[in-house]
């Protein structure tokens, strides 16, 4: 039975305008045509077709430049009220391939901190906009705080160890740090966004072109999922960073977390929506107990329902975060701590719900759940990879401590 998976899962549509629906429909159709309807072919020549499709989406259609102001050649989606739109686009893209979504999410998140009104950072935009608004594919990698090593004392961002350091140098800073693990794309990035600390331990974000002198990459890392988003540890050896390319404040780091939670939430939900389509197709066609469709057996139906519920919840939460961010007249901007807290708290939950949905749905698919042929397992590996890279170390603990700080004024550093 034909149905529209996006319309099936309710969300506050009043937050999304007609323009968005138009764009979303276009991406949806593109995804069906270019990837979803030809999955086996796509799977067989994955790395090649991934690049080709990425180019098609980002350059031919032009989504790579979408977030930048028009004066930089972007599409001007750099106001906070465009947030639901960005989320919708990422979701549609990730329905086809969470790897494509992940790459765009990293690009949008890092760009948003610099390009979103009212706090457009001209110098950073001057650095990254020409690359991202040009006619070449560019890849963004982000290095977040989160992991320290025994016997080393690090500056902390809300408890999270920061491994990269900047020290003042002539006309800017010198960036150093060894073997730091990005959340993705390290092996192929053109731009690094590096959360770093100055000698006083204050955190900030350095924007660094990947071809800067003093940057070296470790071996390519084999990963659970996001196969095309090749990662590698990065070392910075006295890399020169102009002072204008460093955004030195806590709020910016919090904002980066916020965008990551939102955008990667959209990616995981997008992957889940395609998983839902796969599962629904399975449930529509599989006979069990020698009679009756799987979807008509009450026990299987209750598992199917659990899958839909988790996805529905994750989707609602994505749009609620985007509402917190986008409704500046209600919530102000990122300086309001509630936005960071809500993005972290619900962002974590979105990943949990997404993974739960796939985990449970796989139960019903038996070996089709883990056979590559059915693609369910790809979504499962991709979403898990996103979930685990988002948390730094210590699973949900860093986020829980953020929540406790907010709600109970816990003193935890």
């Amino acid at each position, binding site marked *: 039975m034909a149905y529209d998976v996006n319309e099936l899962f309710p969300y506050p549509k009043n937050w999304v305008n007609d323009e968005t629906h138009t764009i979303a429909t276009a991406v949806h159709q593109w995804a069906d045509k270019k990837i979803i309807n030809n999955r086996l072919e796509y799977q067989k020549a994955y790395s090649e077709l991934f690049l080709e499709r990425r180019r098609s989406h980002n350059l031919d259609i032009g989504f790579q430049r979408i977030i930048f102001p028009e004066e930089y050649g972007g599409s001007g989606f750099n106001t906070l009220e465009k947030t639901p739109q960005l989320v919708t686009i990422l979701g549609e893209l990730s329905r086809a391939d969470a790897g494509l979504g992940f790459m765009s999410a990293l690009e949008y998140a890092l760009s948003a901190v610099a390009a979103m009104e009212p706090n457009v950072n001209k110098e950073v935009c001057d650095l990254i906009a020409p690359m991202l608004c040009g006619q070449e594919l560019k890849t963004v990698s982000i290095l977040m705080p989160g992991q320290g090593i025994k016997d080393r004392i690090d500056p902390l961002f809300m408890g999270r160890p920061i491994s990269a350091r900047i020290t003042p140098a002539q006309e800017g800073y010198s960036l150093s740090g060894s073997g730091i693990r990005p959340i993705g794309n390290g092996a192929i990035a053109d731009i690094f966004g590096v959360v770093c600390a100055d000698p006083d331990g204050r955190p900030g974000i350095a924007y660094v072109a990947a071809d800067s002198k003093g940057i070296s990459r470790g071996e390519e890392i084999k990963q659970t999922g996001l196969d095309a988003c090749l990662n590698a540890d990065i070392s910075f050896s006295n890399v020169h960073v102009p002072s204008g390319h460093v955004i030195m404040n806590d709020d910016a780091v919090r904002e980066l977390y916020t965008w990551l939670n939102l955008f990667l939430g959209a990616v995981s939900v997008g992957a889940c929506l395609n998983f839902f389509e796969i599962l629904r197709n399975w449930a529509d066609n599989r006979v069990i107990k020698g009679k009756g469709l799987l979807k008509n057996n009450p026990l299987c139906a209750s598992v199917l329902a659990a899958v839909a519920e988790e996805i529905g919840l994750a989707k609602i939460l994505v749009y609620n975060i985007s509402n917190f961010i986008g409704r500046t007249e209600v919530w102000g901007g990122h300086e309001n701590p509630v936005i960071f807290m809500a993005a972290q708290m619900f962002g974590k939950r979105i990943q949990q719900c997404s993974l739960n949905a796939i985990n449970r749905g796989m139960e019903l698919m038996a070996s089709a759940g883990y056979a590559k042929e059915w693609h369910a397992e790809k979504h*499962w590996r991709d979403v898990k990879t996103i*979930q685990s890279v988002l948390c730094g170390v210590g699973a949900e603990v860093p986020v829980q401590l953020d929540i406790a700080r907010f709600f109970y004024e816990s003193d935890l550093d």
Partner: protein
Amino acid sequence: MKSIDDFSRPLNNVSPMERPFRKVLRRVVDDEIMPHRRKYDEDWENHEYIEPVIHKLCVGLGIQKALFPQEYGGWSLGQSDYMMALAYCIAEEVGRGDSALSLSSICSLWPVCTFLIPPLVNMDLARELAPMFTGEALCIGCQAMTEPQGGSDIENMDLIKGKTITTTARQDGDHWVINGHKLWPTNSGGIATIFGVPCTTRPGSEDPNDFAYIMVPADTEGVTQSPPYAKAGMAADKNGDIWFENARVPLSYRIHGPGKDALAFKGLIYMGQLGSVGFAVGALMNVYEILYEFASTRTFGNRLLKENDAIAGILGDIAGSIDICRVLAYEVVRLGDDRNKPWGNPIYSEETIAKSRNIKEFICDKAVDVCGKAMDILGTHGSDRAWDVEKHWRDLKMVQLWLGGKQLCQMEKARYYFNCTTL
């Protein structure tokens, strides 16, 4: 300093053979599996790294002959009151290194469990097949159960009673002629030496007497295997299609005969649960080792992860869960090893099957959960194959899903404890 040996075992029920045997297995795993296991994922089609280890385990350590009678060159393990404990010990120790390797080695014996564990013993067939299993050549058994249309129907014997089985056995003179299509069994995908084939002598029948279990050597004419499928994990276990087209085997290759075949096949369900909990607990113990290393060397808030109360809380929960799984796994062992005791039940009994299914389901759920949580603790290293946790996560998900999966477990439990009649 604690280690995996601090997890619980009911020491009053442990075989004297177990300690030395564990030691040997531990060494094989540490020396010959751990250093290479990261290559296994890419080795799924060729088994270049995998095959030698399977050989070492099955032939070198003798696993493949264990169940055969001593007079035919085996160890007569099926007679032992510690059989299940020993099988579990192998599953667990090898599973610590690689669940799929453990699976592949142990499942090789799965089909012959149908006629080598008292009271369902067929000595003639044992004598006939012993040369394959007790020699120096690797002999890979494969229990070819699932059919394309059926899903978990075939494991659901109590309800479906075999009536959906489409693989047929027709008697023709002094041979059985087998026709049918099976898929997904462990040790198929081209490597099987011999199949155990559940089939029917009268398609559509619900009479257990029409259920047959027949041993079919892979080189029998009319038997074809597909290449292996690509999967999320478990590279050391090849799975594929098997087609039987008028494959002829001697009548004596039917394991017992009407009625008893069905019982013996039900006993395999128990054996499958026993192996599953072994693979899962073994892998979990390795997850503990990895977590121990990681949490003792990485910091959050400039404290070791394990010294942050909140992260330690999760670590404690994980270790506690593993210990609970270990205790429960030994309950599965007990259910089987008590089979000859006055208070015990045969492995094909309703009680043994329902209870072992219950525990298998619990352990697998917990295992997937623990591995996922462990990945999150490792953060950006969690999805890194170099840390091996994600490998266990992928593998154990598959252990969770096989043998009819979770919903069948739920149904069997409900039927057992609530005397449901229509499920």
